[in-house]
């Protein structure tokens, strides 16, 4: 069974995003970039499926600038077999990303697409669901457990108030939530090995092209700041203030 894992290069999750003063976006110049954490979890899960003998090949695909090769290389060092970069310097919106990925899926014919539930830059949480819709495949989002047997996958999902388990027929799209697994650190030998693995560099036109977007960013601004209030001396003073000053208890 072939598994396709789309990954995204984003601002490192430890770096605080700063809004550009001209309000056109977030400043990414000289900022540390890494693989989106949810994508990392998806790669880990795919590699584990391969180690269990369930997956036979793990293919990683990324859409982004030429530097996204590094992100693919990280996935190859974790254990994926080969990579595809769809090189573009534009920042395509989720619908366009889903369309490109659908074209990749048609060419690669995976039985399972494992991907992060959302990227930590746009926070849309949309591409997996849209890809599944465009392919006409079932979807199992926000996965915290994935078991593949034969032509079915049993997926436990994080839902409001608890967990839900679904069974989907393959091929399917599964999106990873935080607690699906803890991604490994690539070992040095595997990092060296990954340098020799293949990354095919393609363009959006190889997969049907990029259409004009449906969305236009008017501006990007800083959220209103909260200011620090007062320090209280003890619990009694706290209760008194909450009661009389704030009126919330």
């Amino acid at each position, binding site marked *: 069974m072939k598994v396709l894992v789309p990954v995204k290069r984003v601002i490192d999750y430890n770096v605080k*995003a700063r809004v550009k003063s001209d309000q056109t976006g977030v400043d990414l110049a000289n900022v540390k970039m890494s693989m989106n954490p949810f994508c990392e979890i998806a790669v880990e899960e795919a590699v584990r499926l391969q180690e269990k003998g369930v997956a036979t090949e793990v293919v990683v695909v990324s859409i982004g600038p030429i530097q996204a090769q590094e992100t693919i290389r990280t996935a190859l060092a974790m254990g994926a077999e080969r990579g595809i970069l769809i090189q573009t310097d534009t920042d395509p919106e989720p*619908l366009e990303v889903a369309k490109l990925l659908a074209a990749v899926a048609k060419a690669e014919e995976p039985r399972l697409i494992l991907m992060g539930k959302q990227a930590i830059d746009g*926070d849309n949480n949309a591409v997996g669901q849209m890809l599944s819709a465009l392919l006409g495949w079932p979807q199992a989002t926000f996965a915290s457990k994935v078991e593949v047997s034969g032509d079915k996958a049993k997926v436990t999902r*994080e839902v409001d108030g608890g967990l839900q388990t679904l069974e989907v027929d393959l091929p399917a799209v599964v999106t990873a939530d935080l607690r699906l697994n803890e991604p490994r650190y690539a070992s040095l030998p595997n990092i060296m090995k990954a340098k020799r693995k293949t990354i095919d560099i393609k363009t959006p036109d190889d997969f049907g092209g990029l259409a004009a977007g449906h969305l236009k*960013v*008017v501006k990007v601004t800083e959220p209103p700041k909260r200011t620090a209030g007062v320090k209280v001396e*003890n*619990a009694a003073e706290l209760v008194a203030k909450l009661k009389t000053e*704030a009126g919330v208890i």
Partner: protein
Amino acid sequence: MAVLVVADHDNAELKDTTAKTVTAALALSPDVDVLVAGKGIAGVAAEAATLSGVRKVLTAESDALGAHIAEALSGLIVPLMANYDAVLSPATNVGKNFAPRVAALLDVAPLSDVQEIVDPSTFVRPIYAGNALETVSSSDAKKVITVRATAFKAAEHGGSAPVEAIDPGPGAPHTRFVSEEIVKSDRPELAGAKIVVSGGRAMGSAEEFHKVIEPLADKLGAAVGASRAAVDAGYAPNDYQVGQTGKVVAPQLYVAIGISGAIQHLAGMKDSKVIVAINKDADAPIFQVADYGLVSDYKTAVPELMAALTAAGK
């Protein structure tokens, strides 16, 4: 133009997020219909019909809809969109699951987690874990929107809209519901609670979390929350998590105990009306957003707080 709100419910109760989403929908159009899709939902539909401003309630029932399966919901909603210019759902896990699917099938760009409607084509939504706000305009004729419900006031109850049953649609032939584990609690639901008491990594163990956080929450009639660090350490269950990757809350009072205040946690609670922080580290970032800060070890501060609340008649 008419707009459709997809009700948030568990087949038994209508969630408060629905009333808030109705308010957001009324900013787009005076003609708001509510779709209640589920199983055994007569009570939910009856309650939705009382929301002020609702024109009509549509009900659709099947097992797949009862399990909120995205393929079944999108199969039901997409044909209905011939009659609507926008569909809105709260950005709950159910809403986030089906809305992008609906958008892809309509070939439109979904608008996720909208917290402000500037005009019927322009929306404000958080990006980068709430560290930036994006104002975006959509050229799509039909809009698919999930809303951050805490950013909108709940519509009042005072209406009496007609309820009309419709065909449940094609279902989900390739997806089957297996089981669910929903945590039942007598405490208010985290996302809609007026008071939230949250514990962090400082608790050190699940036992300590139960012993310290829960009695205080019960004394205040509060919901219980936790930081991601506490959840990851296994001190509290997943669905307690407040933050960008968990629940976004905006209660009247948020009490953070032993929580340092990582960016990802702040993104989930910074819109609370009043924030109280108890932490022994005076430099913890949580104090920068707290209205009232108490620099103290929770081990002494929480028992004192319990006693002070009792003394104040709580």
